[in-house]
């Protein structure tokens, strides 16, 4: 349903350097799947999310939504895209126009893409808002009168208004409190059940949330996917050193953090994340990798190696690392 094919998104800087935000990403989402995209800053995950909606132009490669390529698409194709794919952004406080009422914001997609107007439009908006738990009195309120969780619900209503086949969620709960996050996540999970054909790309840096919501996960580092597979498999049996470090560093709500997940060695990374302007040569991770070997890792970019059923990792030593 959503395919990324050797996608590259490079931004030229005024200084002549190039920011390689996305550097050769290939990923395929089957209809109805929820796939998580995890990574830290500079990983390119948000860029991919926006590019899938045509909000950021790609430099090369393809992004296919339901078979139609978004890269370099015509205006007509992009218009069709709008009703097939939608996005929910991270910051609910910034995602809504402060001068528009909630109902007007939610109606925007409908006004632009359907002939619905007047009473019929109002009714549909009220229905959409009711489904996300915002009853009538919220219709004419302005964003600043709502809490973060309520604003995010309104954004979800807005995205679902057009019945999209593909939904991109860019860190939808990162800015929310724990209990509100739980509500929204529960809703998203129920949504998966209620719309089994809807494909979702869930972008997050929070591994716990990804575990809860996604069937598959792809781990990104500096614009490249370093590991990909079923979520339980990747989290319990990580085969890429970066994934291991990420899992080890993820704060888990338990008393003895050293006793982390079943089989992960504690590996703390030294140094900072390199900037995507100066992507290291060869394997992007070699500057911080505990098992990097000179002559191999700093020269050759690793290919995807299969390490398990539908589980791949881009590391020269993926197969050698103990499944532990």
């Amino acid at each position, binding site marked *: 349903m959503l395919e990324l094919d050797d996608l590259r998104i490079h931004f030229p800087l005024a200084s002549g350097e190039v920011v390689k935000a996305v550097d050769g990403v290939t990923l395929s989402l089957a209809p109805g799947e929820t796939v998580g995209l995890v990574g830290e800053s500079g990983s390119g995950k948000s860029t991919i999310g*926006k590019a899938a*909606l045509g*909000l950021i132009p790609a430099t090369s490669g393809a992004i296919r939504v339901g078979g139609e390529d978004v890269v370099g698409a015509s205006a007509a194709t992009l*218009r069709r895209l*709008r*009703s097939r794919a*939608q*996005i929910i*952004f991270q*910051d609910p406080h*910034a*995602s*809504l*126009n*402060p*001068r*528009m009422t909630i109902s007007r*914001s939610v109606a*925007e*997609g409908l006004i*632009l*893409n359907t002939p619905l107007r007047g009473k019929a439009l109002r009714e549909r908006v009220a229905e959409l808002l*009711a*489904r*996300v*738990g*915002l*009853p009538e009195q919220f219709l004419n*309120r*302005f964003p600043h*009168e709502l*809490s973060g*969780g*309520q604003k995010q*619900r309104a*954004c979800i209503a*807005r995205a*679902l208004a*057009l*019945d999209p086949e593909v939904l991109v969620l860019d860190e939808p709960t990162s800015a929310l409190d724990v209990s509100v996050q739980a*509500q*929204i996540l529960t*809703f998203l999970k*129920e*949504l998966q*059940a*209620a*719309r089994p054909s809807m494909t979702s790309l869930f972008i997050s840096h929070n591994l716990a949330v990804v575990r809860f919501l996604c069937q598959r996960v792809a781990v990104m580092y500096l614009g490249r996917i370093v590991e990909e597979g079923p979520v339980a498999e990747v989290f319990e049996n990580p085969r890429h050193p970066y994934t291991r470090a990420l899992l080890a560093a993820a704060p888990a709500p338990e008393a003895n953090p050293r006793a982390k997940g079943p089989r992960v060695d504690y590996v703390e990374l030294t140094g900072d994340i390199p900037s995507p302007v100066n992507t290291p040569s060869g394997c992007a991770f070699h500057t911080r990798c505990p098992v990097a070997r000179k002559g191999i890792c700093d020269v050759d970019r690793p290919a995807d190696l299969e390490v398990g059923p539908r589980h791949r990792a881009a590391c020269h030593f993926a197969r050698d690392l103990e499944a532990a």
Partner: protein
Amino acid sequence: MSDAALPAPAAQAPAPRRPMRFRETRRMAATYSRSISAMLGLALVVLFLATAAFGPLVAPFPEDATGAVNFEAKLLPPSAEHLFGTDQVGNDIFSRVLFGARTTLQIGLTVTGIAILIGVPLGLIAGMTGGWVAETIMRVTDIFLSIPGLILAIAIVGALGPGILNAMVALSLVWWPGYVRLVQAKTLSLRNEVYVDAARALGAGPLRILFVHVLPNCLSPIVVKASMDMGMAILGAASLGFLGLGAQPPFPEWGAMIAQGRSYLPDWWWCAFFPGLAIYLTVLGFNLMGDGLRDVLDPRQR
């Protein structure tokens, strides 16, 4: 299609004591009224507007504003009959000041209005598009802004010939660049807001984004600037009038009145003093009000 349903959030707070609708307006009004200078500004502006509206109706000697001459009453000091005294042709200065308010208001509104009509769209275009269109607009704006305003106005009036209408044209041409700068900067920053991206994702084209999302959020700085500009425009017109380039006698324009009265200083000080006082209070009023509005509408910009 049956969908998942989120539980409705429990009643937010107990119903706020005032109805939600105008709460924001009330809060702004309350904040505004807490500032003494802002309230003073508001009072002065209201006084000015009232004078412009009703002044000519209460003026004791309305014919004096249009050129009647009364040499017996010439250069009389302020008294009960002539509150502000009389000038060298015997006209009641108080009446002339009252009539002059209307002219002044006209000038201020026209100049500011035209400046906004020209400057805001240009600023929006410059902010939304990039490339050579924006560059051209901004460079032209820069050129205008680098010439001292009054000098430019004088030059334009010099070319067009003196008169109140030409003065207004000149001042409008001097004023519009300021709005371009302001609006362009605001548009540039608004363009990158998340909700603009969201609108694009929903299928909005650039025009729609401009009018529905960007423009309404630009309004507060424009309002603040406009109110300060009223004062400055009035001062500008008065300066031109003082130089003899604006209203021509016997037109009761305050600047021109000061010019006339100048020759009679200091013995017959009232001829220049009262029109000057009127200008001072009006400009002060608009400036204070503009400051107050800015504090209310955009407290971060303090």
